[in-house]
C-alpha cells in the first residue's frame, strides 16, 4: 500500500473520530489495537487472509474488541479490515496518531510497560516526559510483556529505557 493511500485512510479515520468527538479515545484504542496486531501473528493472519470473507473478518474484530473499545473504534477497525487493508492497519494508525498529535501540537510518546499503568501514573509519566524533553507529549501506552518490568519510552528519536529487559541485555553483553 502506498504512503499516499495510508495517509488517505488515516485522514479519513481522523476526521471521523474528530467529527464523533472521540478522537482521544479512538486514537488511543486504535494505537493499542495496532500494537496488538503487530504482536500477534495469528491475529494478523486472521484479519488479512483474503480467503476469509470480509464479513467474517469484521465479525472477528467485533468479537475481539467490541466489548472493550468504543463503538467508533470498532467500526473504524472493522471498516479497514473489511476493505482488505488489515495488513496496513498499524501504518494507518501510526499515521493517524501522528496526525492527531500534530493537530494537538503534541509530540508522540510511546511507552511500553509489562503491566498496565493507572491513569494517575500515565499523567505523571506524561508530565515527567514533557519535563525531560521540553515538549508536550501525546502518551500512548502499550502493554508489552517482553519488557519484563519497568518502562521504555520513545519520543521521536529519543529512547529512555528503564526496562528490566535492557538490564538483562546489558548483563548479557557483559557476560
Amino acid at each position, binding site marked *: 500500500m502506498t504512503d499516499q493511500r495510508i495517509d488517505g485512510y488515516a485522514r479519513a479515520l481522523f476526521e471521523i473520530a474528530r467529527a464523533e468527538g472521540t478522537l482521544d479515545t479512538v486514537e488511543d484504542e486504535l494505537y493499542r489495537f495496532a500494537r496488538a496486531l503487530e504482536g500477534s501473528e495469528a491475529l494478523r493472519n486472521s484479519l488479512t487472509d483474503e480467503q476469509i470473507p470480509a464479513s467474517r473478518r469484521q465479525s472477528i474484530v467485533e468479537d475481539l474488541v467490541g466489548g472493550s473499545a468504543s463503538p467508533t473504534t470498532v467500526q473504524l477497525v472493522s471498516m479497514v479490515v473489511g476493505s482488505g487493508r488489515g495488513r496496513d492497519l498499524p501504518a494507518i494508525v501510526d499515521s493517524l496518531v501522528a496526525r492527531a498529535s500534530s493537530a494537538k501540537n503534541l509530540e508522540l510518546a510511546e511507552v511500553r*510497560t*509489562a*503491566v498496565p*499503568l493507572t491513569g494517575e*501514573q500515565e499523567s*505523571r*509519566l506524561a*508530565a*515527567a*516526559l514533557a*519535563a*525531560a524533553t521540553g515538549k508536550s507529549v501525546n502518551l500512548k501506552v502499550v502493554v508489552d510483556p517482553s519488557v*519484563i*518490568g*519497568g*518502562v521504555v*519510552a520513545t519520543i521521536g528519536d529519543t529512547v*529512555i529505557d*528503564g526496562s*528490566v529487559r535492557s538490564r*538483562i541485555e546489558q*548483563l*548479557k553483553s557483559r*557476560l
Partner: protein
Amino acid sequence: MILLATEDPTRTHSWIWPEGYEIYFGGAASIFVFALLFKLAGPTLKKGMSDRTARIQKQLDDAANAMSSAQAEAIRIREAKGDIGSERARLLAEADTQAQQLLVDGRARLEVEIVDLETKAVADNVAASGRIGDELRAEVARLSIAAVDHVVSGSLDAATHQELIENFIVRVGAGR
C-alpha cells in the same frame, strides 16, 4: 715282301714303344701343334696371366685399403669409446652433484615446512583453545541469561512492577 708278308699285322715290335715312323710323325706333329699353340695362343695366354696378376694385385690393394679403413675406424671407435667413458663419468658426477643438491634443498625445504607446520599447529591449538573458551563462555552466558531471565521474571510481583514504574517516572521527571 716276304718279310712283310711274314710279319703279323696284329702284333707290334715292342710291348711299350710304338712303331718308329709313328714316333717320327707323332713327334713332328706334336712339335708343330705346340709351335702353333705357342704362336697363336701364347699372347692370349700371356695377356690372361697379366690380367689375372693385375686383378689379384688390385684385390690385394683393395684389401690393404679396407684394412687401413678398418684400422682408422677402429681407432675412431676406440677414441669414441674413450669419449663415452669420460662423458659417462661427467654425467655421473653431474647427477651426483644434482642429487646431493636436491637432497640438501629437500632437507632445507622439509625443515621449513616442519617449522611452518609446527607454527600452524601451535596457532591452531591456540585458536581452538580460544574458540572453545569463547564457546564455553558464550554457553555459560546463555545459561546465565536464561537463568536470570527465569529468576527475574518469576520474582517480579505486582509491587515490584509498580516500584519499577514509579522509579522510572521519578528518574525521568528529575531530568533523567
